[in-house]
């Protein structure tokens, strides 16, 4: 297998698109397909982002894709994931609306959505384009957002296996929606491009968890997009959890359109993978909204995690809080890029950002970059980033009380992570993450 360069990769995906198009029967006249075609045209202009692309300077997806991915050994659509096997990766003790995807496609048999709570609608995105045509037309890939890039275009072009979720107005949904994305890389390399649209209507409350797993030793490439529309007086909680295989490459964009006066809480947890790139793009369209973004990356080995976040304050009187924390061991690499836009109209904005990192080994590396673009004058913004080691005074204090080095380290790192973890409001999920962290530390 020879290594692919960017041009090969572009060609490969364009070829894939043609094959995909040929497999669609009678869909080519539908509005959804027009969007796909528009997207692939947009993609063609620049192709796969590579290292010369400013936003992918540290995360050369094209390079690692070219190195790890074997296009001649591509998985066909047959897979054999049993519920037994899948359930090992479900969040224990969690009462959830369970949606299981295999290679980017919703699998009805593995999912558990027979009895949905009142006010919750879920179905395959393809059919939703017809059944919910009005919502679709209004919200699917229509809201422009900072941070969208060519990976998002590529994903739009392949819109097929994802889901459509609608939370009706006034519905308070206690049960979280848990999406488990499995890549079956047991026999071959696999590509998945799930594309989801979530609409939280007025005065609703709901939570969504997205968890990513690659099975097997072959390479997976995930290019996911989840669009979330949040309307007036709604609260939406979003969790992303990545405990991937060492051969997993992932680009994922979560695009949040806070169209109404609303609260959005996001927590991103990254534990393992080859290269994981998270784009969390949030646009605040209505006054008196609140946006909270938390993240924890706990990395070792050669895992590379890149969190790019954008919060775009378009209107006055909103608040955004962002806190990302990293713990890096081995030869791992962490990147944080946090953009805050405060538009000219967005007076009285409060925007806070912090990124703190603890580096445990000489070979681990962190790049952190806050980017504030502030056009309004009456705003309160602060940002701070730190990269350091464990505090030796703190370590000594614990050890002077009889606590061995390993335990002392683990206590300090847990304490460091705790103010991110405390924002996981789903207890069973928080317990799982705490256990995973304890196993590691």
């Amino acid at each position, binding site marked *: 297998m020879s290594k692919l360069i960017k041009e090969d990769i572009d060609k490969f995906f364009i070829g894939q698109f043609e094959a995909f198009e040929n497999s669609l029967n009678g869909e080519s006249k539908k509005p959804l397909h027009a969007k796909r075609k528009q997207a692939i045209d947009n993609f063609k202009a620049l192709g796969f982002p590579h290292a010369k692309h400013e936003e992918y300077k540290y995360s050369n997806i094209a390079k690692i894709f070219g190195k790890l991915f074997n296009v001649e050994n591509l998985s066909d659509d047959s897979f054999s994931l049993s519920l037994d096997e899948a359930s090992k990766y479900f969040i224990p003790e969690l009462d959830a609306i369970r949606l299981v995807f295999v290679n980017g496609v919703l699998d009805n048999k593995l999912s558990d959505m027979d009895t949905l709570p009142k006010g919750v609608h879920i179905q395959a995105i393809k059919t939703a384009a017809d059944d919910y045509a009005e919502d679709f037309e209004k919200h699917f890939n229509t809201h422009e957002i900072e941070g969208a890039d060519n990976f998002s275009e590529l994903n739009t072009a392949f819109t097929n296996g994802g889901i459509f979720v609608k939370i009706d107005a006034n519905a308070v949904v206690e049960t979280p929606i848990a999406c488990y994305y499995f890549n079956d890389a047991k026999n071959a390399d696999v590509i998945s491009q799930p594309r989801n649209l979530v609409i939280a209507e007025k005065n609703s409350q709901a939570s969504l968890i997205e968890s990513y797993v690659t099975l097997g030793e072959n390479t997976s490439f995930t290019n996911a997009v989840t669009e979330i529309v949040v309307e007036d007086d709604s609260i939406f909680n979003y969790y992303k959890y990545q405990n991937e295989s060492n051969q997993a490459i992932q680009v994922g964009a979560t695009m949040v359109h806070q169209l109404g006066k609303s609260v959005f809480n996001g927590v991103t947890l990254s534990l393992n993978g080859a290269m994981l790139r998270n784009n969390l793009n949030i646009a605040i369209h209505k006054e008196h909204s609140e946006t909270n973004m938390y993240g924890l990356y706990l990395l070792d080995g050669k895992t590379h995690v890149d969190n790019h976040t954008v919060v775009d304050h378009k209107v006055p009187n909103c608040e955004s809080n962002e806190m990302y924390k990293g713990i890096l061991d081995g030869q791992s690499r962490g990147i944080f890029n946090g953009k805050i836009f405060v538009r000219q109209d967005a007076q009285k904005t409060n925007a806070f950002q912090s990124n703190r990192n603890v580096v445990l080994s000489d070979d681990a590396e962190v790049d952190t970059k806050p980017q504030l673009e502030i056009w309004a004058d009456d705003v309160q913004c602060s940002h701070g980033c730190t990269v350091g080691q464990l505090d030796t005074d703190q370590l*000594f204090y614990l050890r*002077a009380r*009889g*606590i*061995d080095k390993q335990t002392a380290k683990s206590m300090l790192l847990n304490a460091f992570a705790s103010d991110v973890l405390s924002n996981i409001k789903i207890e069973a999920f928080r317990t799982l993450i705490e256990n995973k962290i304890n196993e590691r530390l």
Partner: protein
Amino acid sequence: MLSIKNLHASIEGKEILKGINLEVKPGEVHAIMGPNGSGKSTLASVLAGREDYEVSSGEISFNGKDLLELEADERAKEGVFLAFQYPIEIPGVTTTNFMKTALNKIREHKGLEPLDAVSFLGMMKEKMKLVEIDQALLSRSLNEGFSGGEKKRNEIFQMAMLEPTLSILDETDSGLDIDALRIVANGVNKLKNDDNATIVVTHYQRLLDYIVPDFVHVLFNGKIVKTGGKELAHELEAKGYDWIKEEASIA
């Protein structure tokens, strides 16, 4: 119990301790006094096992063990306790959780079962009373945002919980108002018995009115230059250190 012979220690290439000799027997209280920068905290840190210091020569034996061979946590398990001059703040770790971990590590070392929740809470309550520390304080992050006095009290609370055989109190009196001083001293005295010993580092005679020392040592420029009974502390209080410095430079 503790025997220090000709101890030399340096930090970043600078020698701070220049030949310390000290013998401490069970049941004794030793006071160490001396001007700022003379090396008192350095001695305390070296005893507790801080790794930043390099011990270039000398010996420390503690209950027959070579202390210099042991890591900080192993020393604590053997019964060495340092009440810090400047207690460290640790956000995200509560005092309660910290004490439970520490206590059970020490118990494990002694071959004892971990304390169950009920006994632990009972013990906490009892020791809290001893130093009159508030429950609310202990459920907060360790020392975070504590006042100077609260931090010092917390040190003595920890000492009460861990029941060490050798306690080194590094300026536990500084930052305490007179009532707090009495409470803390009272706590220390109640913990005293024939089998344990205390080294009190202080600048002020007033603490020694409450914790009465058997010996007073003056540390100056990295050496113990004078040793006496409790009356030496009074003399220092009255005359300051200049005469000691003169004596030392003549010698």
